[in-house]
């Protein structure tokens, strides 16, 4: 007796194939995201990256007039190396020395020039910090 065809399997197979196709299409057109780097790993990197680190004391400037300049070091003091960031756009009230931030941009002549409005400051909203 001939085996009965199961349309459900066909539907599932076609759907999975369609999803994969769309996924490949997207990733080939739009790329697969930006690298997320610590300041100590930034040297020599070309193109747009997301820099993640802690804000060092002594930031200055105006993010809406000439740019806010601050230095970032690796999270939790993993390395002493710092990177100077020039940023324009919105700055969260949570932004201050010691806070962890992520900012998108690229390295130009030793300074990390940030994309406008790309600064995200981690909200120290909940849960106790890791006990050392």
């Amino acid at each position, binding site marked *: 007796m001939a085996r009965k065809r199961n349309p459900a399997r066909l539907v599932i197979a076609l759907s999975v194939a369609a999803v994969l196709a769309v996924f490949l299409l997207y990733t080939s057109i739009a790329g697969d995201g*930006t690298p997320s780097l610590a300041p100590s790993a930034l040297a020599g990197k070309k193109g747009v990256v997301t820099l993640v680190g802690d804000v060092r004391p002594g930031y200055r400037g105006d993010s809406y007039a000439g740019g806010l300049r601050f230095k970032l070091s690796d999270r939790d003091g993993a390395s002493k190396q710092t990177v100077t960031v020039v940023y324009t756009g919105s700055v969260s*009230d949570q932004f201050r020395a010691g806070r*962890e931030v992520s900012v998108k941009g690229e390295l130009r002549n030793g300074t990390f020039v940030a994309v406008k409005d790309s600064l995200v400051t981690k*909200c120290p*909203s909940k*849960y*106790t910090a890791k006990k050392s």
Partner: protein
Amino acid sequence: MPELGRAALVATLGLVLYALVAGAVAARTRRRRLAESAQTALLLTFVTTGVATLVLLLAFARNDYSFVYVWELTSDQLPIQYTLAALWGGQAGSLLFWLLLLTVYSAAAVLLNRRASRDLTVWVVPVLATVMLFFAFMLVVVSSPFATQVAPADGRGLNPSLQNPYMLVHPIFLYLGYVGLTIPFAFAIGSLLARRKDERWIVATRRATLVAWTALGVGQLIGSKWAYEEVGWGGFYAWDPVENAALMPWLAATAFLHSVMVQEKRGMLRLWNVLLVILAFSLSIFGTFLTRSGILSSVHSFTESPIGAWFLGFLAFVVLGSLLLVFARLPLLRTRARLESLVSREATFLYNNLLLVALTLTILWGVTYPIVHEMFLGESRIVGPGYYNFFFVIFGLPLLLLMGIGPLVAWRRASLRSLGLTFAWPAGVAAVTGLVLLALGAGSSIPGLIAYSFSAFVLASIGLEFVRGTRARRALSGGSWPSAFAALVSRNRRRYGGYIVHASIVVLAIGIAGASLYDSVGEGRLTRGSSLAVGDYRLTYRDLVERPGANATLVRAVLDVERGGEQLGVVEAGKNAYTVERQVSNEVGVRTDYLTGEDLFVIAEQVNPDGSVYLRVFVKPLVNLLWLAGFIFLLGSLITLWPDAREQRRLAVRYRGAEAHADS
């Protein structure tokens, strides 16, 4: 007092350990008395966990800073409502709150099912006890809220952004959702352990699943409202890992709620449903792992704690254990019924499920992508909102359309002719809507135009269903249109409540499309007397005022609002400076047009010493439909959840018959 709290938690741990061991032995050896004592132990955990929670609440109410947890999250100046809500504002307290809700859900599940589904409940108790054991262990051994110290004079205060009315309820709803997903999971696993072939576990947990799903949905909307007003960047959802952590189990549970109907009606998708329940529960644990492990960079930093590894271990145990059990029970999950046609109600449910699961997995992939990339290629990469937005449109639009198609297609097989007749009106309404919107200029966003046309289609098909149903009910029993309508909904709560939920999703989609795809934005530095024009609005900076608040100093830029030459009043935006917390928070100004659902949304990015302000202003059309959708969603869910004696009787007869058949 802290000793009482600790003792209560140790008692909970002992009780769940007993419930697990005694429950497992009782289920295996079919010892009824032992099973009952395991159930009693499980019920008692509500009392002991309740005592622990009460101790902590009292410590908060008395500002007892000898409790480290209380000191970390409150201060003398903190208003009482936020002081008490700080219970779930920190890690240990949130774990305790989680456990408390789990004991409530478990007690309700056991009490409601121990007579009606005795054989199944016997196996469910050890599963529930296993989940409880993990949380009780965490609270007793790893992260206790009852750690003490020499009491400092004042507490550290609560983060200002959490001092918002929405934050009083948002976590409660989210936890109700996350924790509630334990119940269908426990019953599904219990059913597999008991080697049952029937759908009893689905029927037994339908309401619990709906409660959890509703709570998770409402919780996310409240969270969006909080983010919109308090975080104040001009949006309501940012695809942050922590937000995604709540969205993923909700999507999986949505798929499950649809596919169970296919299993109930046709006996199909049995394996799929078990897998969906495991996925939804695992994602709720995965979300907790994400938010507490620090493994991913999120705007929320409640991530730096050592309990992430414990959650990862528990997640691995849940996933591997469940999948092994499913594999061992595969013969029980085979389905005899087949999909007869690709154009049928069950087929549309299948498409809906595939899209929902694809969207869930796509989000999961985006969330875990940085870890996977770093693991295999040595460099972390993150995907931005563009990735999520793309797939949200790709999967979301067909899902929207299916909401209008699915309920109107016949079970088993539908002819193309009947489809044409059924969908003529909705399709016509959609086409007219699309053309009118195109003429009005909505073609600036093609996804937006499609979303609105699809929304019109779905609303028309839902409306048609209500009209047809009411007409039929009136023809059957006479009476007025309103009474026929009320009788229709009352007699088919699940179906028509579901339609109302669908309508809420359409309203949500209209709101999201309007606020995201058709918004206007402008920004600039203003001195007193100067103006900024955004969209049809003109804002004139009148003055900067300062006034004291309950526990902060409030600074506000007062702006006169004008549209088309008409004065609309003032809007105030500024900052709050919190003294104890030594933090500043942005306080946005929002002017809502209740007729159009549009918001004028003002952020005072900078308040400068010279009195000038830097403003960012958004005009967000239809954004208030998002919040309206929340109320409609809740209404639909409540109708669906409302007890239906007729349905209960029908199910009781059906399962009495099924059990008699199984016993013979």
